[in-house]
């Protein structure tokens, strides 16, 4: 039930639109079938599964808009949902930023669904957790991990002729392996569209190697160091690159409250802000990290360059702000892809005279939005490199750094890998600022 086909979902949406008496009506259906397993202390702690489909109806009278939702789809419920959206709309204040609904659009054909992932069972999850635990138990190490997978769909229709549908799947896995004495910790994380690429044992092995290798870390003085940031140190829910991408909004920049605001007014679109080797774009059809082909309003998502050879090429313009400033609207993308080279993390280590390998950055918080300064800490595997080799594990550091400064201090860019639905290379950065030591392992 949770994953409706294009025909099934459009049939429901057509009915909804048919019940509407509003000037404008847009309805969307989205659904998911998801499952997870969580383990810690080498034992499964929780496991769950759920599915859900939701209808969202937006009705508009002039510039007044109301939204209602429901999760049952018989005619009476659908009719009530539409009526409720219309009642709420009549009572709502006028929206000064009103934009008319979009008409028919042309979309790319999405490539973000794998039937193998949609077919994952609770037994599969238990097996993956069991494999990860067994590998660690055998080595006298302790595993804590989380596996979550899901199949998703989204369908959209309005009374202006817009019609859209897309499906996607994903599987996300992360594992932290610790030594029983608490002196070593390692981490691995990965996500895929197609589960057939997933290997719990290989990822756990990588985390276990880091845990064993990070025992008895030495303390280095805080200061500026050349660092090799693995992709997991660049991308996470709060990652430095994610934060850079979240801050590409044109409106905030034009309003004067963004790192992209220009002295005296306006924004820095077209200015060179980063090293010329930095190119970041979004592409929903990237085979390795595909994304959605339309956004919540039904705007088509296509390939777009955000940073090209260090120059800010595009910023996010909502439809309202684009109209107000005479620009093209740009939807919020489903992924980002940072171009890189062919070098692995190992290759980057080999070419490093003195430096620090960082597995993961954690608890990243903004310090100053003016300069995009962030703070956070290294975690789960930090090592000192000398003459092309890892010499010894080191204690964790707190950093205070801006991705804008960081992407001007680029020494080398490795081969991109998928993480968090994006493609991100490991980066070698000079003069990365560590401001204090942490005893945390």
């Amino acid at each position, binding site marked *: 039930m949770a994953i409706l086909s294009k025909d099934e979902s459009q049939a429901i949406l057509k009915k909804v639109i048919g019940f509407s008496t509003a000037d404008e009506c847009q309805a969307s259906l989205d659904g998911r079938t998801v499952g997870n397993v969580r383990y810690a202390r080498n034992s499964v702690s929780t496991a769950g599964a759920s599915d859900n489909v939701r209808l969202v109806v937006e009705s508009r009278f002039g510039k007044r808009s109301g939204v209602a939702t429901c999760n049952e789809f018989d005619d009476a419920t659908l009719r009530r949902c539409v009526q409720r959206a219309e009642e709420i709309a009549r009572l709502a204040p006028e929206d000064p930023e009103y934009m008319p609904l979009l008409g028919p659009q042309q979309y790319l054909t999405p490539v973000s669904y794998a039937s193998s992932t949609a077919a994952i069972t609770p037994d599969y999850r238990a097996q993956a957790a069991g494999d990860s635990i067994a590998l660690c138990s055998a080595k006298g190490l302790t595993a804590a991990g989380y596996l979550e997978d899901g199949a998703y769909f989204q369908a959209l229709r309005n009374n202006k002729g817009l019609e859209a549908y897309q499906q996607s799947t994903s599987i996300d896995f992360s594992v932290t392996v610790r030594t029983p004495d608490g002196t070593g*910790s390692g981490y691995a994380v990965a996500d895929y569209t197609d589960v057939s690429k997933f290997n719990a044992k290989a990822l756990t092995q990588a985390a276990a190697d880091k845990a064993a290798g990070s025992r008895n870390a030495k303390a280095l003085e805080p200061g500026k160091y050349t660092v090799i940031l693995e992709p997991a140190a660049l991308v996470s829910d709060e990652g430095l690159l994610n934060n850079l991408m979240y801050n590409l909004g044109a409106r905030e920049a034009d309003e004067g*409250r963004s790192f992209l*605001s220009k002295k005296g007014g306006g924004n820095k679109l077209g200015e060179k802000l980063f090293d010329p080797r930095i190119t970041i774009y979004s592409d929903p059809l990237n085979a390795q990290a595909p994304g959605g082909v339309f956004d919540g309003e039904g705007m088509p998502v296509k390939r777009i360059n955000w940073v090209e050879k260090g120059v800010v090429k595009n910023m996010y313009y909502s439809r309202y702000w684009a109209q107000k400033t005479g620009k093209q609207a740009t939807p919020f993308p489903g992924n980002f892809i940072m171009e890189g080279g062919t070098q692995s993390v190992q290759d980057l280590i080999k070419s490093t005279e003195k430096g620090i390998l960082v597995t993961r950055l954690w608890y990243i918080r903004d*310090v100053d939005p003016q300069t995009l300064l962030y*703070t956070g800490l290294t975690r789960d595997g930090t090592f000192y490199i000398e003459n092309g080799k890892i010499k010894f594990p080191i204690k964790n550091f707190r950093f*205070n750094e801006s991705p*804008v400064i960081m992407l001007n201090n680029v020494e080398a860019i490795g081969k991109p890998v998928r993480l968090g639905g994006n493609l991100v290379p490991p980066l070698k950065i000079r003069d990365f600022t560590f401001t204090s030591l942490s005893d945390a392992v």
Partner: protein
Amino acid sequence: MNRRDFVGLTGLAAGAIWLPSVPALGGTLVDPARLLEPGLDPAVKKRLADAALNAAKSAGATYADVRIGRYLNQSVFTREKQVQNIASGESFGAGIRVIANGTWGFASTNQVTEAGMAKAAQLAVQIAKANAKVQKEPVKLAPQQGYGEVSWKTPIQVNAFEVPVKDKVDLLLAANAKALENGASFVNSALFQINEQKYFASTDGSYIDQDIHRIWPNFSVTAIDRASGKFRTREALSSPMGMGYEYLQPKAQDKIAGPAGTGLTGYKYSYDILEDAALAAKQAKEKLTAKSVVPGKYDLVLDPNHLGLTIHESIGHATELDRVLGYEANYAGTSFATLEWKAKNQPYGSKLVNIVADKTQPGSLGAVGFDDEGVKTGQWDIIKDGKLVDYQKIRDQAHIVGQNKSDGCCYSQSWQDVQFQRMANISLQPGKEKLSVDQMIAGVDKGIYIAGRGSFSIDQQRYNSQFGGTVFYSIEKGKIAGILEDVAYQTNTVEFWNSCAAICDQSDYRLFGSFFDGKGQPSQVSAVSHGSAHTRFNSVNVINTARKIG
């Protein structure tokens, strides 16, 4: 990046909460009037709960609990002169947790009928039995008496859902107007309201009906100097509270004057959003030309509205037993305050530091009569005279530290999610000697006064932290000497709490809190308060956070 990450971030990053794309607090969007309709009668809930408990026992469960929950919420967002979003949400269903073959199993359903409940109970038992195959040690629950049919309600004066949406919008827009009149370039404001109507029943013989209310008014004011391109924000000095709308009806007795020379006011059990918005705009403007801090060691005087988060991060999370034991190792992290560390009996803080966990404190976010596994709540010492004396525990953890009683710290954000250990209200006790903030500042030769919440970050074992604030003042020779900028302090938890040199008295004590504290995988939020009075910490390392970019 994907949408899921984006939405996830909005729950974590203070700045991102102002994005108008932030969805309602969950549930099905409903008409505001729906939030006032009564839920099921307790007698009906008892019948439904018994259907689940009996089904679980028949399927082989040795223990079962049921939570029938109706979770209501409303959020209002505005910016400058306009409303951005008003959303009212309702979520209704039941979660059933069982122990079978010595292993936990959980299932939830929105089919709240006898048949639906029984089916979910059977599924929970099935999941428990499947997981039992990889279980090493059977679950051991601390004994818990059944309370029979009881109820508890947050002692509110005005149910926020009874206040017309228009009044709330008008109040936020009036606050925005105050900020704009006083020089703000932009202002965003919001009001979050939550009502959890939850019914708990277990095979121990408890049938507990609770009605819990929380509220959080908030704003962020931005001042911009176009010529220099500089911008600065000042956040609201409100606190999220376990109260009704009365929190937004200011009363003189709840106002405590801040340090002389700052214009600041502390708010106890009611908040004057208009007064604070006006001051915020003036201070945001002042910050544009404020002196940049010279890094070095300073004595810090910390306002309760700031110190709350420091307590939360460096003591609250560090003393959660699930973190100590490694259950959160893959995400939130572990803790330096291990059982071995505690056994050494070394000081966590100076002798002035007394930290109490309290699930009953009136007005607090964590106050409930019973937790989400049917344990009657209470209060207990975490740090006594500077020494760590206890942790925060739930039923299946107590035996690991040689205790036979839960602390009542079990919570789930909804009926759909499994309950687990969450932070109790964790508060620093006020000083025993009479001491006002002005008297405290008078004793400081070179220091910084910090108010409000800003950037906060701490490592996964809770040693190393860096905290900012929303407004900073230099203290020179016992007096406030002007506003400062670019301030953050970096510290080690144990060093920091051992540098605690003075705490103001009870009359200065007030609550701060976290409305969206995240933990677990999949992540769940909980709300928790932290009380304190102004507190002095000696010789803390302060850094300058100003940078230059292209």
